[in-house]
């Protein structure tokens, strides 16, 4: 934990909650992924400090924690924007033009996949199939699903809602 996070009451309570979750686990063996899920749901992302903390509490080397975090696409080491945008690049969306939708978002926001806008409002990601293939191409903003997006104008319209 950096000194900054020690003085931040909010962060401190998040660490306490994570510690409580770990202590209440029926078994620590094999729990690394579920602990990381919990940590990411609390902090929004998994910075180095959180990974060190998890490793220490579970008795697992930090190298192993980092190995797992970097292996799975669900885990992120960078904070997401206030409204995380995920463009589905599953096959069904791809054949219905998802790559063009992604380009439109990149152009509108001026960021690449995995980046966040300077004001922290939007972050852009690609994901593989939300299973709403009937609505292809599909974009998720937070939990909200937007389907059948076909033009750059629609992309602008969606962004203007936020």
């Amino acid at each position, binding site marked *: 934990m950096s000194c900054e996070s020690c003085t931040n009451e909010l962060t401190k309570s998040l660490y306490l909650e994570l510690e409580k979750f770990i202590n209440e686990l029926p078994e620590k*063996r*094999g*729990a*690394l*992924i*579920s602990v*990381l*899920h919990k940590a990411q749901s609390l902090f929004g992302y998994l910075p180095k400090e959180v990974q060190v903390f998890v490793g220490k509490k579970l008795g697992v080397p930090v190298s*192993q924690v980092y*190995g*797992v975090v970097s*292996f*799975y*696409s*669900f*885990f992120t080491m960078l904070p997401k924007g206030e409204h995380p945008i995920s463009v589905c*690049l*599953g*096959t*069904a969306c*791809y*054949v*219905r033009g998802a790559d063009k939708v992604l380009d439109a978002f990149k152009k509108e926001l001026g960021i690449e996949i995995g980046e966040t806008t300077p004001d922290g409002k939007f972050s852009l990601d690609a*994901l*593989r*199939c*939300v*299973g*709403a*293939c*009937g*609505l*292809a191409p*599909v974009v998720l903003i937070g939990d909200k*699903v937007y*389907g059948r997006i076909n*033009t*750059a104008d629609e992309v602008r319209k969606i962004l203007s809602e936020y």
Partner: protein
Amino acid sequence: MSKYNMHILVCGGTGCLSSQSNLIVENLERYIKEANMENQVQVLKTGCFGFCEKGPIVKILPDNTFYVQVKPEDVEELVKEHVIKGRRVDRLLYQDPTTSEHVEDSKHMDFYKKQQRVALRNCGFIDPDNIEEYIARDGYAALGMALSMSTQEVIDEVKKSGLRGRGGGGFPTGLKWEFASKNAADQKYVVCNADEGDPGAFMDRSILEGDPHSIVEAMAICGYAIGATKGLVYIRAEYPLAVNRLQTAIRSAREYGLLGKNILGTDFEFDIEIKFGAGAFVCGEETALIHSMEGMRGEPTTKPPFPAASGYWGKPTNVNNVETLANIPVIFLKGADWFASIGTEKSKGTKVFALAGKINNVGLIEVPMGTTLREVIYDIGGGIKDGKKFKAVQTGGPSGGCLTEEDLDTPIDFDNLIAKGSMMGSGGMIVMDEDDCMPAVAKFYLEFTEEESCGKCTPCRIGTKRLSEILSKIVSGKGTEEDLEILKELSQVIRDTALCGLGQTAPNPVLSTLNKFEDEYIAHVREKRCPAGQCSALLQYKITDKCIGCTACARVCPVNAITGAVKAKHTIDQEKCIKCGACMEKCKFKAIVKE
């Protein structure tokens, strides 16, 4: 069920929920309450009906009226007309695309006529959160039957049914159970593989969302057969609704004594725990899945040892896919002989396919094994979107290959698909039309496997990267004929030497498209031309005589490649053009073409 004389079923699958089906349920309940009919009309949120193209779906029983694309604001009319006055609302009925006539009930829709629903038997019929509705449809009776048999009899029944794994491999399920059962150990595990990673396939999610109890029941039967007391479901964290419904199902099953100790008054003990995946395609491979459940990187290991001998924490483990398990209770209820009577000689039963892409009826369908591709695409799927020409269908996702027009009359089963250079996979079917460029499709799949390769073995880690680089070169017009030879040779090496199924099958999309559409590859490398008109690097934007010289295109061009006087035809400098397409989008006169 008796006190209600009308049931309104609203689809609560992910697709329909995204189109506000939740609000439809709320509005239905409100207007029915206003009409004081809440004791006669029951509103139910069910699992997926499969007809996702026209969602949200509302179905009214007993007359099977099938309303499509219902909006929350349509509900008032629906209640006043249909529920109160008994008159169908024609404008919300499904319209047959060939006859343009309204189809009143689902039984007469082409989409459903050729389907036979076994694994999806309860999806769209019951409230998945209510265990009693599952029990009312003979739920948990199969578990009762299994518990009165010996474990070997249970295994023999599954073997006799001819059921093969629906996750991709097609390995006989009964045999798999027998292996796990014969390996003695103090603890064994039953694992349900719900890590549906094939992009474009969503049958496992729909089954878990629409009929979670069938999975709970099947896992318990498997547990009894192989001698395991513990079950684990490995599920994608990206499927929150499925997770939620499964959790509810497990909780209710415990309350009803269908999980836990002394199940149905016997000595049998079984319980289920949920383990979350974190987004890695390779975890669909059973050894990788087991490592991921142990909290580690999901890297596969060589087989043998098979999980049946040494799996989760080194104990005998049986891994089955969701759809495979969903078939188990029916095999006991209707008998192995009944199940074996459906399908082809070596592929028994039915298969669920996720139809997607350029097809009219996107959705989830279930047909007997041996149904032809033509029936699936034209009769059930309603043909190709916008009247375009069918080109190919990719089956088996990133591990599969494509089938073309000449394969349309091939009966679909495990062995025929492999003979045609594709595979069943989990059942994704992506339909492509004349506008899809096959080398670009191959590149799309290889980018996927390159990204999803776990990096453990060299052929897959480096081989998929090289394949994807060569394909990028080809679609950007920089490929040579020699590249095509390298593609073939490298594909063969990866196929022969990669460690696990992901790597071994990764070259399939390349080999299959090269085999069936070699002329397209040749056009890309020899003539620097994309016959489908999709590869933007090989296209030129041109201004036709329709141009009136409004200057809109010149102003929007980010690289100032367009010049021309006001009210005169403009021209594009091909050297400067970056092919972004902004001009074409901006032109109101359709004067800019891509060729």
